[in-house]
């Protein structure tokens, strides 16, 4: 599905990703952990097509298609979804109108008819229920005045609506209290299936108690330096990152 080979990328001449390799297959959940400044959020940005990031070397393909050649909107239409670490407030754009526009542009790209108002409403209700998203928030302006937790839950609701092939969750757990964390995790678990995949970027092992990953990768200085199963996360929680840095250095 997603294949990242020898990815070098940075911002304004500063190289942040320095030869990153990652293979993600359908049905898998990959966790990416690592110390501050390792390049975790940069990876999310590069994959989703955030402006200002420049790829200097390497390739990223999704089902064989070159993602790096595509605009951010085309990546989304091909099935890439980024749950933002800091979701943006856009006053005056209604949440529901925004989602309807997004969904129909994606459908159009895929040669599908737009959903009727009725179909869209039914889908929206179904997904709201699935990810436990408050109906009142659906009709408000996009993220305007939402609490930190509500914003993150809105990201998961959007994820449910747009049904991507690969979802990247960029520190979705940051700023969540334990109840919100449970709701968000439950939503993600319900959305996991054999066709899609998740990349979960996090600082903390806690989230991985709820969303159990198939692989845990440690990102350090722009490269994946260690890969293991969910137990690696527990070790990191206990011992920190320094032992890996030493291991890599030796």
């Amino acid at each position, binding site marked *: 599905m997603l294949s990242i080979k020898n990815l070098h990328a940075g911002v304004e001449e500063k190289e942040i990703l320095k030869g990153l390799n990652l293979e993600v297959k359908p049905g898998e959940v990959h966790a990416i952990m690592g110390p501050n400044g390792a390049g975790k959020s940069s990876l999310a940005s590069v994959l989703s097509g955030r402006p200002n990031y420049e790829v200097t070397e390497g390739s990223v393909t999704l089902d064989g298609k070159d993602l790096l050649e595509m605009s*951010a909107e085309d990546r989304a239409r091909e099935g890439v979804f980024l749950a933002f670490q800091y979701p943006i407030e*856009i006053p005056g*754009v209604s949440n529901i*109108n*925004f989602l309807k526009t997004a*969904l129909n542009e994606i459908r159009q790209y895929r040669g599908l008819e737009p959903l009727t108002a009725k179909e869209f409403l039914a889908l929206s209700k179904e997904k709201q229920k699935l990810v436990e998203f408050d109906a009142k928030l659906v009709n408000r302006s996009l993220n305007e005045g939402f609490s930190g937790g509500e914003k993150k839950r809105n990201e998961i609701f959007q994820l449910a609506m747009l049904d991507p092939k690969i979802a990247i969750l960029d520190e979705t757990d940051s700023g969540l209290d334990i109840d919100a964390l449970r709701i968000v995790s439950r939503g993600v678990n319900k959305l996991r299936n054999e066709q899609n995949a998740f990349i979960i970027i996090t600082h903390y092992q806690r989230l991985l108690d709820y969303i159990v990953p198939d692989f845990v990768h440690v990102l350090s200085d722009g490269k994946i330096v260690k890969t293991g199963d969910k137990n690696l996360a527990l070790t990191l929680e206990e011992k920190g990152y320094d032992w890996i840095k030493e291991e890599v250095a030796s």
Partner: protein
Amino acid sequence: MINQLEMPLYDSLISKYEIASIQNGNDALEQLRRKAFDIFRSLGFPSIKNEEWKYTNVLPFLKEEYEVPVQQQSLSKEDFDKAAALVAAHQQEIQHSLKGENKGAYRLVTINGQISFELSILPEDGHLKIIPIAEAELEKEFQQYFGTIATIEQNAFAALNTALYYEGLYINVPRAYQLDQPLHIVNVLIANAPALMQPRHLIVLGAQASAEIVETTISDKNIQPVLVNSVTEIAVAENAHFHHYDIQTGNSGLRFIKRVEATQERDSNYSNYTFTLPGADLVRNNLVLHLNQENLESHLYGLYLTAGTQLVDNHTEVHHKKPHGESNQLYKGVLLDQSKAVFNGKIFVYQDAQKTNAFQQSNNVLFSEKATVNAKPQLEIFADDVKCSHGTTIGQLNDEALFYLKSRGISEQTAKNLMVNAFAFDVTQKVKIAPIRTYLENKIGEVMTNASSN
């Protein structure tokens, strides 16, 4: 003042005035015209050294060899047919955006300022009076208000209009009359050679009367340069309500210098909605309200969406003269390409005007690195028990918000369109006539779709 010696237009106006003044009979009016022309003659056209014109250099727009008609021109059949076709197309465009909405509106068509009753659809109950301004001189309200509302001192353009106007509308909404549908004034401009046009209007609302008037201006795409220097005087009597919309679209070659000046009596409400869209080269709006009595309210809503090398300048003045007045001002600007905008909002609270509430807000977003906006709030308060506030913001397109929308599969154009409509929403939602709101939203959509992607 601009060095008028280098200004053929100034010379031509001086000689035109001599001709025009011979033709006019009415004494009071003749005196006013003479006084106005003297003001114009001594002021000349304003240069950027004039504080009121600091950011708007009119000089480049005065260099054309404009014809300056000073009496009614007869319209050729060809031009009339052209006007009729433009009106029909315009109607189509507006109707098109109305899907399922109430389509009812009266229509008043002017061609170069001259009323075309043939193309108009007006109420037939005989109460609403609409006649050419030149035929209104014996009307009581004309004699009461004409020339008393518009300020010509220090205003070269308004003075020039007063001295040389000959076309325009006199509209009288009589006491207690409620206009049951909006009146849509369609101003058609036809010019086969560069021309200076100076329409002059007087709109009077009697006590307890109410009306909604929507003005639009249309012209041929290949129109010759036209400078429209218009003055509209408005008198809103006790407890009258007037919602006044001006939707400013146009083509390149058109330059508008407009002065709308209104007086309000007690318990009245005047609401002005000025929307400027890409098209005309220059738009200068002078909107001046005199809150002459107690307990009244005024609303000023403006939206300017500018593109190309357009220059759009909104100057507003609100004069709170008596207690318990409320004025509310919200102007929003979105600037594309190399366009420029100016917002200058003055609020005067006179010594007697205790318990005044006066608010002003101006928000601007630059969508291009080459666009410029100059925004300046000015408050002069001489009363001590008032609530006044003002705020001005100038921002840029929020790249992070744009990326957020795109990351959900929304195209750049659609994303920008959503963001502009969202930004304009505070103003567009104030529009009381649903079809006009839809028309505006569609227009914004069109502009954003055609806008270049940077």
